[in-house]
């Protein structure tokens, strides 16, 4: 955990510095008449300082006092996690092209399979029913305009 705390601290410091640099490109204004860059500038400095303190704390704190010793990242099921994230991003990317019905159907098949790998036909039926139910409730009843995609539905 100590290692990850240091990495998080470095990441936070970088973000803070980036915020400071970006806000300098905006008009900072004056102390008594702040411009659009003033508050982001102050936030950037605060973030940098706090993350620095966080990093220092992770170096100084004794092993016995460390709240968590082991790594926070998963040793098992991490492939499921990555799979779900990739599937979600793919869905977002393809939503407009494939349309709601097809893209969400494919996503549901994958998610149900991740939940419990089994017979494809059962998974397909579960996914189809889910998509149909949400389409009726959200698309027809609540009139949410879903993208139609190349299928035009």
């Amino acid at each position: 955990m100590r290692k990850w705390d240091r990495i998080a601290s470095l990441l936070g410091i970088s973000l803070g510095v980036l915020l400071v640099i970006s806000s300098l490109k905006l008009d900072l204004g004056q102390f008594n008449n702040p411009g659009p860059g003033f508050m982001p500038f102050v936030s950037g400095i605060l973030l940098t300082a706090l993350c620095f303190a966080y990093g220092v704390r992770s170096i100084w704190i004794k092993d016995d006092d460390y709240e968590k010793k082991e790594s926070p990242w998963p040793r098992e099921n991490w492939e499921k996690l990555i799979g779900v994230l990739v599937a979600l991003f793919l869905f977002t990317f393809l939503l407009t092209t494939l349309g709601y019905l097809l893209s969400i159907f494919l996503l549901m098949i994958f998610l149900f399979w991740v939940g419990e790998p089994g017979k494809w036909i059962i998974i397909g039926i579960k996914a189809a029913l889910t998509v149909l139910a949400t389409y009726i409730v959200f698309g027809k009843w609540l009139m949410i305009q879903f993208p139609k995609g190349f299928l035009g539905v």
Partner: protein
Amino acid sequence: MDLIQYILAGFQISLQPINLFYCLLGVVFGTLIGVLPGIGPAGAIALLLPVSFHVPPVSTIILLAGIYYGAMYGGSTTSILVNIPGEAAAVVTCLDGYQMARKGRAGPALGISAIGSFIGGTLGVLGLMLLAPPMGRVAREFGAPEYLGLVCLGLTLLIYLGRGSFLKSLISAVVGLSLSFIGQDMFTGEDRFTLGIMELKDGIDLIPIFMGFFGVSEVLMNVERPIQREIIKTKVQNLLPDLKDWIDSIGAILRGTVIGFSIGAIPGGSSVIASFASYAVEKKVSKYPELFGTGVIKGVAGPETANNAAAQGAFIPLFALGIPSNVVIALLIGAFMLHGIRPGPLMMEQQPDLFWGIVTSMYVGNAMLLVFNLPMIGVWVQILRVPYKTLFPLILLFCLIGAYSVNYSAFDVAIMIIFGMIGYVFRKMGFEGAPLVLAFILGSMLENALRQSLIISHGSFLIFITRPICAGFLTAALVIFLSNLLPFFKEKREVLGREES
């Protein structure tokens, strides 16, 4: 109009069939959310927020508020029967509730939890009704400097009342504050951190952030480590507590109401803190504190009452000051905004029907929860058997639909997934999401108040000292901030954080 007339007018609205329907829907859905581990009231409200476009404003808030306090009722069921809290405010109920169930007393534990919740909730609404209007009258006199002081105090309290590391809460809040600056500057119209992306010109929408942080990240956590649920094999019977249980619990219920309501009404206070505080007080005042954790009914009655009273108290800052006291209330502000209504003191004056309609619906909702929940406990137990592997695709699906329907944009869906990932990393690293989200909401309010105040005062910072209310808020914020650095408070935070985890 006097108070009684307002209340009667409120009931006329809340008892309309359409509002009764939404109230029932809200409390049942809320209880369901409370029962199911893996999604809390914030996630559930975020899911339903875009859907509420098509529902009248009063009904929307009645529905969403019902989910909030309904979840407080439902959360105890899993704590008692499965030893897994359905939502964070029911964590402490596990300690004695589950032990009662193991001793064959699941019925009285569930019964006293529902009755305590009803008493806490109903007295909480009474407090809300009596306190919000006079507080609103005071708040109507607030200008930009007072709002700056209030936001500073709210943010400080939020960080102060957070769990675990103070430094991490602070970092979380600053990240949220920084995110609030994305979009066009309110005063000059200049683009800030938009990276040339058209969709970012109006800033990041609240809903995708909420859904990502509280919906998607929760699912990711559970995909990685599936929830193991083992429902205790005992007959749930004798739901109504006997005379001895009543005698043992009544003091805890009344104390829980006062503690919960007071903590809920503080910006930054939450049902989680209220339930822990109530448990700590009960243990302190008990003649046999060593028995706590072995199945003492007071250990269930107090916290369960407190978390419901806190849920009602949390509406005070919303109605009286127009600021969120916790994440769920922030979402309700989002719901008001979707309907073009700005909650706060002016709303109470200009749209009293809305305020009183919502408040009186809470009486109705609490009564519905008491009447329906006890007989439906068997149903909730059955729902607990729905495996998470079936549930998580559905939760993700609702998140995707919800985020998409805000602006009919796939960009919002991408934002939600990104914030889901950030939320997951935050949870893993022990950072709290609430300070980030609330600072994100309050950030623009803070910046506007600061710049407006300096325009009013022609650049003089003395305005923050010479206006007594603002000076009071800022002094209180400073004292609270500094007190966090004292070893006693630091230790308390860490103990609370450890107990919760």
